[in-house]
């Protein structure tokens, strides 16, 4: 589904990531774990087209999409829930969701997808007329995932969905991610909360200061002594 090879991104003269490679097979959940500043967010931003990489290639559904602008990739089936959720604060919840349908011209299809979001997140439905900025952190995260469901990509990129959430909500969000994956959406997950992420993932890659280092099936990674010591705190 998605293949990233030797990706490099620089901001000015500073390399945010130097050499990152990974594969996301169709229908799977893949996670990138690593410490703060390892380059996880930058990697996702380069994949979804928010920043242009300075070297390397990104292949999506067999096509080279390296450096393609984000708004075009949405149409090709890429959904990205960015770090910090990035809800439009002075648009209503409904307007936030409707905007996510920007590339979809079929009105009934839009309606169907909105219903799907309401079904998965009943709490969002209750808040429909409220301004996005007035939602709680957990609700904003649900809305952000809901928006991505409306854009309806074949792959869902999630950047730190658990950040700043109470443990109960973290579990709820991860359950929803599994549910979305079960419906056929491939998931690429970036997390600092490594233990939770490894639990739901099929494959995992470890990012260290701009390089992808250890990789393998999530279960093996979770058992790897180096990973356990550095990221799982055991």
């Amino acid at each position: 589904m998605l293949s990233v090879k030797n990706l490099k991104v620089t901001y000015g003269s500073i390399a945010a990531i130097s050499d990152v490679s990974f594969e996301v097979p169709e229908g799977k959940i893949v996670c990138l774990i690593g410490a703060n500043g390892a380059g996880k967010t930058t990697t996702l931003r380069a994949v979804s087209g928010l920043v242009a990489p300075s070297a390397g290639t990104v292949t999506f559904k067999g096509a080279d999409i390296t450096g393609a602008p984000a708004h075009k990739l949405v149409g090709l089936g890429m959904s990205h829930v960015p770090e910090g959720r990035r809800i439009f604060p002075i648009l209503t919840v409904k307007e936030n969701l409707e905007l996510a349908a920007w590339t979809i011209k079929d009105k009934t299809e839009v309606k169907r997808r909105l219903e799907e979001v309401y079904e998965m997140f009943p709490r969002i439905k209750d808040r429909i007329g409220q301004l996005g900025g007035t939602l709680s952190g957990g609700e904003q995260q649900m809305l952000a995932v809901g928006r991505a469901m409306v854009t309806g990509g074949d792959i869902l990129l999630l950047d730190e969905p658990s950040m700043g959430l109470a443990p109960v909500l973290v579990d709820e969000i991860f359950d929803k991610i599994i549910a979305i994956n079960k419906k056929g959406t491939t998931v690429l997950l970036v997390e600092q909360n490594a233990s939770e992420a490894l639990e739901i993932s099929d494959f995992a890659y470890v990012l260290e200061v701009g390089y992808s280092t250890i990789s393998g099936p999530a279960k093996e990674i979770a058992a790897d002594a180096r990973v356990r010591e550095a990221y799982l705190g055991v």
Partner: protein
Amino acid sequence: MESIFSPQQIVNGLQLGAIYALIALGYTMVYGIVRLINFAHGDFFMVGAYAAFGSFFMFNVFLPRGNGLAFIVLILAMAAGGAIAVLTDHFAYKPLRYKPKLSSLVTAIGVSMLLEYAFSAIPMIGPSPRGFPEILPKKMYHFGSAEVSNYVIVDLAVAAVLMIGLTFLIQRTSLGKAMRAVSQDKDAARLMGINVDRIISLTFLIGGAFAGAAGLLAGLTYPRIQPYMGILPGLKAFIAAVLGGIGSIPGAVLGAFIMGIAETCATAYNSLLGEGIAFVILIVVLLLRPSGIFGEKTADKI
């Protein structure tokens, strides 16, 4: 004191305010979407006035003066204002979009001078003022002690129609929703599939077209145009936008009408004061309420 705030002055103030409002909207929309004070905006107004001037003489050859001709001239003035705004954004501001803000600000001042000197240098335009033709036959009406010309009605009607149209576009259409989204968070808008550059161009187009319409109305109302005519109205409309709260659309309109009325009333008292009142207002606003009347609503949550 009565003569200063007479109904006549209020009518004149509303008329001037309508023109300021059309210019101020462009300032505030562009600021709202790219956080740039576009100091060339007053010159888009000048371009609109000359486009109206030129298109009037072109079309007057085979069309009589009247509403039909005035409408064509309005459309062409708006097209010219919109076109120059989009071109300015594309060639001058877009390359600097993600550079420090000061670069675009200095560039805006440069574009402003470029347009003023270029228009002075074009042989058919030249640096000296020109009389603006009476595109519509002038009629006078009397309401109590105030004299109202049909130009007042035209100015207010054009401004009202454009402003209502803009409000509808921004509040009720999906394009307007996208414009609001882009002004709040560009990256998030990109991830919704919105072509942010195109929305920014559209914003410049609308702002420029409104300034172009204001150029025609100003030519009609104060029938003397010259290449530097955009400087002062541009500055005053900018102050109106600051007064209303830059980034706020109703704020720009309210600020413009306050400015228009303040200016005509002050001019009635003393013509020098009339020229300076805008800057007095600016200083007072910056001292007492720098965010303006409506400020910018924020609902950020961390």
